[in-house]
Structures are given as structure tokens and as C-alpha cells.
């Protein structure tokens, strides 16, 4: 590529981004790093004239937390389960939506509706779907998901209530997160699909290539930049999962009687922030940053080999 004479132009184009990022992102990050090395630093305490010891105390306190491994395990599990599932489902839906003729507009519109649904409604609907009400031994209402499964002869499952098991909780979380992530991914992939030249499909048709083969040989490679985007940002976001757990389990971060069973790394950061321990929260954030960074580098390394621009 030609270029160095464009250098000043490039910086000009990037100027607004750089300035705004420096002020509203980089500066807070520097602050975060500073605070992470001050033991149990509290901003409000500092206001009151308290001084804090410099060192690695926050980091060691974070990793020695009794439930640190629980938080880490939940974070990793939720991320590695939901990102591939939601991406594949979204891809399938986008391709299908692109392939049909009748009802296309109606269905597309329906897949748009989540954008105009307030987030409060999304959180509440879930409780209604999985919540079991009444005595655990003989519930009065088992929720519509269990009603639905009952059609196939499945005994009611205790999904999120008192005494529920970890795998059931995790399943609900995975469904919730995938469901939440779908609309955006469909939108991006649907947009990306418009960029695929129809001529390829026509050529494939003439050659009599099967649908499945066409999908893997044409659609996926042509969409690979968008897929890479969805996957990489999905992993970055997935490691920061928190509000979805609150959406299903509330501040308890677990079913009744098992507080914190589904807590995540960002959940832990919130716990520390709510006790005004910005020092410990910052240290945890930096640890999380390290983890995401490694994963993203692996992702970028893989996508470098697979993505066609």
C-alpha cells in the first residue's frame, strides 16, 4: 500500500477519537492503575484524609478470596458457552432470513423488536418463565418452560429457585445471555451478508453445489470479517458478564440460599465497589484485563489465519 504521505491525514481523521479517548478512557485507566496499588483505597476515605499503603496487597487479597475461583469459573464458563452458541444461532438465523421470500419482511421486523424493548421488561420476563412458586415439594406453578417440557414428558426442573442445582442455574444463564446477544449479532451478520456478492451463489447453483457446502465454502468465508468481529468482541464482553446474572438472580447472584453461587469477576468488582474499596476493585479489574488480553490475542492470532478480507 502507498501511504506515508497520507500519514498526517490519518492522524487528522483520528484526532477526535484520540482526544476523547485520552480524556474519558485513558485518564480513568491510569487512575485505576494507580489505585490498584494502594491497599484498600477508598476514594471517599481519601476525601476524609486517609492515606493508603503502596504495594501489591490488593492483588493478593483478590486472588486469595475464598470465592475467587467460583467467580473465575463462572465467568469463563459463561463466556465459552455463550459466545459460540449465540454466534452460530445468529448466523443460522441471518442466513435463513436472507434465504426466504414470503413473510421475510414480517420476520425481519420481529427480529428487530428487541431493540425497542426496555431492558426492565427483559429482566422480568425471565423470572416468569423459569420461576417455580410454592412449596418446593409440591409447587403451585412451575413456570412456562417446565410446562412446555412437560408436553414431552419431562418432569419439572428446579431451574432457579431454592435448592436448585448448579447446572440448571448455568443453563438458564446461558439461555438468557444467548437470547440477549442474538438481536445484535443477527443485525451485524445480516448487514454483512448484504456484502456477499450474489454472483457467487449463482455460480454455486449452476455447479449444483449443495446448500451445506455453499454455506461453508462461500457464506462463512465471505462473512469471516464480521464473524471475527462478533466473536472477538463477544469474548471481550463475555468476560465482563454481570448484569445478566443480576437480571436472573438479582443482587443475590445465586438462587435463594446460595448467595454468590453464580457470581462473576465483574460481580466481584461490584461487591468491592459497593463497599467503597476502589483499590481492590481496580486490582481485580486489572487481573481481569490480563485474562481478556491473553484470550483476545489468541483470538486475533486465529482470526489472522482464517479471515479473508
Amino acid at each position, binding site marked *: 500500500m502507498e501511504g506515508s504521505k497520507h500519514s498526517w491525514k490519518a492522524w487528522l481523521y483520528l484526532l477526535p477519537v484520540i482526544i476523547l479517548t485520552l480524556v474519558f478512557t485513558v485518564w480513568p485507566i491510569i487512575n485505576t492503575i494507580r489505585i490498584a496499588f494502594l491497599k484498600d483505597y477508598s476514594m471517599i476515605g481519601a476525601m476524609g484524609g486517609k492515606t493508603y499503603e503502596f504495594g501489591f496487597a490488593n492483588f493478593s487479597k483478590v486472588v486469595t478470596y475464598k470465592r475467587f475461583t467460583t467467580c473465575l469459573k463462572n465467568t469463563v464458563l459463561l463466556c465459552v458457552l455463550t459466545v459460540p452458541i449465540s454466534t452460530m444461532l445468529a448466523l443460522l438465523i441471518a442466513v435463513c432470513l436472507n434465504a426466504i421470500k414470503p413473510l421475510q419482511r414480517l420476520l425481519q421486523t420481529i427480529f428487530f423488536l428487541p*431493540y425497542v424493548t426496555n431492558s426492565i421488561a427483559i429482566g422480568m420476563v425471565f423470572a416468569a418463565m423459569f420461576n417455580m412458586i410454592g412449596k418446593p415439594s409440591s409447587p403451585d406453578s412451575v413456570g412456562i418452560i417446565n410446562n412446555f417440557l412437560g408436553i414431552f414428558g419431562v418432569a419439572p426442573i428446579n431451574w432457579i429457585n431454592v435448592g436448585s442445582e448448579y447446572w440448571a442455574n448455568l443453563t438458564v444463564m446461558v439461555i438468557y445471555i444467548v437470547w440477549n446477544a442474538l438481536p445484535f449479532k443477527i443485525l451485524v451478520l445480516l448487514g454483512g451478508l448484504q456484502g456477499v456478492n*450474489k454472483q457467487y451463489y449463482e455460480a454455486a447453483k449452476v455447479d449444483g453445489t449443495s446448500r451445506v457446502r455453499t454455506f461453508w465454502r462461500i457464506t462463512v468465508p465471505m462473512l469471516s470479517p464480521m464473524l471475527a468481529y462478533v466473536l472477538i468482541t463477544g469474548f471481550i464482553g463475555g468476560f465482563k458478564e454481570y448484569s445478566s446474572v443480576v437480571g436472573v438472580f438479582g443482587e443475590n447472584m445465586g438462587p435463594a440460599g446460595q448467595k454468590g453461587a453464580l457470581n462473576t469477576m465483574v460481580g466481584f468488582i461490584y461487591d468491592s465497589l459497593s463497599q467503597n474499596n476502589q483499590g481492590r476493585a481496580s486490582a481485580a479489574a486489572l487481573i481481569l484485563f490480563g485474562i481478556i488480553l491473553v484470550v483476545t490475542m489468541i483470538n486475533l492470532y486465529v482470526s489472522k489465519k482464517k479471515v479473508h478480507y
Partner: protein
Amino acid sequence: MTAAHEINLEQVKARQKVVRIVVKVLLYAFLGFMALIVIFPFYWMIISSLKSLEEYRQAVPTFIPTKGWHFSNYAKAFTDGNLGALFWHTAYVGIVSTIISLVITVLAAFAFARLEFKGKNLLFGALLATMMIPGELFTITNYITVTRFGWLNTYTVLIVPFLVSVFYIYLLRQNFMQIPNELYLAAKVDGTSDLKYLWKVMIPLALPSLISITILKMMGAWNSYIWPRLVANDEAHRMITNGLRNAFTESTGDVNFPVQMAAVAIVSFPLFLVFIFLRKYIMKGVSRSGIKG
């Protein structure tokens, strides 16, 4: 022999037809099923907005209002909620920040996708890295910053700190990179300026992504809550989610959710229309024969 052959052929054709129909049916069944799942919260929002508070608080939720359809919730939402002002504040912030943000994002994505300069990848990597730290930690520092700038209770404070989104820059960069470089070089030979090329070729080709960004950015204004409450919770700037959360609090401190839902539905409706309108631009796809490969 010929007849047998023909029958065979017909059988094959018939089988193909059956396969095609089965595929179609499966396709629609799948889409229909997913559509039901995806639409459910929207449906829930609407029926919740039509329930009485008592029915809403019932232990076992009802899927269709059984104690009357309370259309009066909508009237109450309208009169109690000061919806007009809330709507305009939010729309103003949404529109202004979307437009500025689009310009910034397009320019940055173009620079990252098409221009060569020293430190490009370092800068891009650094931007990507900023996404990896939970943003909750930035709130307090940013609050102190905007206070120093004297921005409290202005539209500036609602718009400026969120103009840059690496998330969108990255999306658009990927989109731009799909467009073959040959086109750009050809344009250069013709003496077309960067901006003209950007405007005439890249933007039309990346339209679906730009519309996605527009939608998400607008919805961001509709759903933002914590920051606006912190920095601009005065009558003249209060945004929708904030206003709604406060407007329908009963004296006991409980929120009257059905009326709140009704209010949400009312203020979301114009957005809904805009999206329906934009949908066709996402789906149209631009005629681009000869562009790729």
C-alpha cells in the same frame, strides 16, 4: 426403457421437490420458533402495560391480563409522566450524539482500514485494549473530570463522553476492509479525494453497518440511566429511563410497573417506526456487481 427412465427422472424430481418443501418447512419452523422466543419480552412489555398493579404483583404471572385490560395505564402514563419533555431531551441527545458519533467513527474506521501510518496497529491495539477494563471503574474519575469542566447539567455532558466507541469503530473497520483495495487505488489514480471516495463508495457499501450503529446509538440514549442520573438529573435535561423510574413511584416506594411499562411503550413507539423504516436499507443490500473479487 425410456418410459422407465422417465419415471425414474420424475421420481427424482418429485423427491427433490419433497426435499425442497421439507427444507422450506424446517426453515420457517426454525425462524418462527426463534421469532417467538425473541419477541417474547416485547410481548411481555405490552401485556404488562395493560395489567392492574394487583395483577402484576400476583405470585403466578398471567400471560394475558385476566382482570381487565387497563388501557387507562396509558392515559395515566401520559398525564403523570411528563413524557413530552422526557421524550425531547432523549431524542435530542440521541440524534445529536448519533450524528457526531457516526462522523467520528467513519473517519477513524477509514483511517484504520485504508490509510497507512506509523503506529496504526499499536493505536488500534490500544483502543481494543480499552474495551477490556470494566467501564464501571471509569464512572467516578469521569464524574470528577466533567465537574472540573463545568459540564454538569448540560447536554454536553450527556453527549461528549460517549461519542467514541471502539466497538463501532471496529465494526466499521471490518466492513471497510471487506471492500477491495483495488477500488481505492483506482480512485486514487483518477484523482478522487479520500473524502469523496469515502462518501461515494465506502459509505454506501457499509450502509447496513452504519444503520446498525445508528440504531444501537439511539437505543443507548433510550436506555442510559446511571450516568444521566449522576450528571444531569435536572428538569431541563432529564432523560427517559430516569424520568420513568421516578415518575411512577407510589407513596410506599413501590414502582407502579404497569404504568411504567405503558410509558416505555409510548416513548418507544416513534423509535419503532424509525427502525421499521430503516430495516429496508439494511436488507436492501447495495447493488455491487463487479465490486467484490
